[in-house]
């Protein structure tokens, strides 16, 4: 099966940062492969190793994104495409989805896979947007994937339980990071990735109008999460403390 995995370069969301005058400033410039996309790449590799096929990755990003593509190639992807943008465009999920669908209109594939959300925005919209724009059957929040002939079997974590969904190919799927542990590229993989091709595609060559590229949502500013009011802490004799808190839940908090 031919897998096309869309990957995104995101800041390391666990690195230290500051908020100054509503602007989010990361302490270091470290950018990483979106963890959910890494799971998508991993699963594509597992399935093609098992059933045969090919894994290609595509990334929309500024120049530095080529490192993210290399990481996916080092994991084992066969080929990469870098859709080159400046990085200052402030695209939202919709812009990214329209760019991706313009790119995929001319491509052949069995499965179009993405991480279910990206760590910088946690919006989780792009995947199903792309599926809709390309009119592909799709499933989101996959926690397991399997291939049966020309069908992709998706185990989806839904509200009531796990849904087993059969998707005819070509199809789209978004992946949860609960699906697997993405492999850490070994030295052989890193060395091999240097020789794998990365096609660079200029955004302008995809023929999208300014309107199609523009975002209709914008982040105006950032602020710190409002702190929860400080609570009461109890130590000491277990029985005493347990009784006390139980009483407080009744009389003070009124939640019983």
């Amino acid at each position, binding site marked *: 099966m031919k897998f096309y995995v869309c990957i995104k370069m995101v800041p390391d969301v666990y690195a230290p940062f500051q908020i100054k005058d509503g602007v989010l400033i990361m302490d270091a410039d470290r950018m990483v492969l979106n963890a959910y996309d890494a799971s998508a790449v991993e699963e594509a590799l597992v399935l093609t190793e098992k059933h045969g096929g090919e894994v290609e990755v595509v990334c929309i990003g500024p120049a530095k994104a080529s490192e993210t593509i290399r990481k996916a190639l080092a994991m084992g992807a066969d080929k990469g495409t870098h859709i080159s943008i400046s990085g200052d465009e402030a695209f939202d999920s919709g812009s990214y989805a329209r760019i991706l669908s313009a790119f995929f209109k001319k491509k052949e594939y069995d499965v179009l896979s993405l991480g279910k959300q990206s760590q910088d925005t946690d919006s989780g919209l792009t995947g*199903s947007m792309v599926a809709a724009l390309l009119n592909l059957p799709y499933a989101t929040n996959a926690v397991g994937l399997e291939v049966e002939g020309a069908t992709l079997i998706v185990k989806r974590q839904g509200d009531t339980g796990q849904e087993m969904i059969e998707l005819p190919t070509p199809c789209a799927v978004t992946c949860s990071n609960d699906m697997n542990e993405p492999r850490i590229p070994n030295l052989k993989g890193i060395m091999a990735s240097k020789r794998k091709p990365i096609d660079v595609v200029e955004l302008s060559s995809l023929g999208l109008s300014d309107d199609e590229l523009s975002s209709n949502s914008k982040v105006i500013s950032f602020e710190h999460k409002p702190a929860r009011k400080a609570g009461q802490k109890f130590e000491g004799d277990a029985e005493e403390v347990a009784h006390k808190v139980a009483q407080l839940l009744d009389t003070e908090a009124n939640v019983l």
Partner: protein
Amino acid sequence: MSSILTYIAISDGKIKRSSLEVLSRSKALADANGLTCEAVIIAPKATSFIDGVQKYGASKIYTITDSIFDQHRNAPLLSALSKVIGTSKPRVVAFASTEGTKDILGALSANQNAGVVADVSSFDLTSNGVKAKRPVMAAKVVGNVEVTGDVILISVRSGSYDLIESPINAEVVSVDFSSNEGDLKAKLREIISATGDTIDLNEAEVIVAAGRGVKDDEARSLISELARVLNAGIGASRALTEAGIYDPSLQIGQTGKVVSPQLYIAIGISGAIQHVAGMANSKVIVAINKDPDAPIFEVADYGIVGDLYKVLPPFIEELKKIKS
């Protein structure tokens, strides 16, 4: 007149509380901005929920009835919603942010060419769209977002708004829609509902959550007993669901369920950011942990530093007394 349309999700034969929270907010905004407050119910027995919905202020309720909606399926839901939106032509379509919503929100906005913002903790109308606050950066930071457009789709994190009753006699509009499973490209083979008859965490008023400190059968049975006494849902941190000790559908956290009960009791949970992101909207948080430096104590309203084997039995006893 323009409207705010709220999607009412039905689960297990009941209206999901989170949908009613969103409806309450939509009603307040509609009143404040001179818009009508409308709702849509898409379910096999959609009309049986009219009373439950008009209680919260929806003056017009669209219903679509079809057996295809007995389980969540994205394709028919998208078609059904598109039809209602075409009929209602709302300014804003509001959803509770559930897995079902996440499955369709992006696709719906693409189909409708609508603006969209997901997973907000609060939202307001602007002259040409919506402004909202939403958590970003592993829920450590709040982003202020503005979306413009003639139609905006929005999903709201559970627990962001209170239920506000505002009873009204609604106009019910039944929308014609039918879907054949055979016509669908994606097929739902089966649903493995491991939770079975346990309380749905998204609806629970009280949740007892187990973390790494819950190491053995004795601890687990204490958790079950506490949940029984409080009629609580049982949730777990990622460590335990990954270890297979509790089912993944019980995972509470950034990548699991986001819950907003009245009372959340965290037992043996350290309080890592990713877990807190899933329960910070709880009204009252109790934490039991033997590490006095555990971060969970920073969010707990009542923190008990102690050994759960020693604290839980008297805690359960006292709660039994109070409840009787």
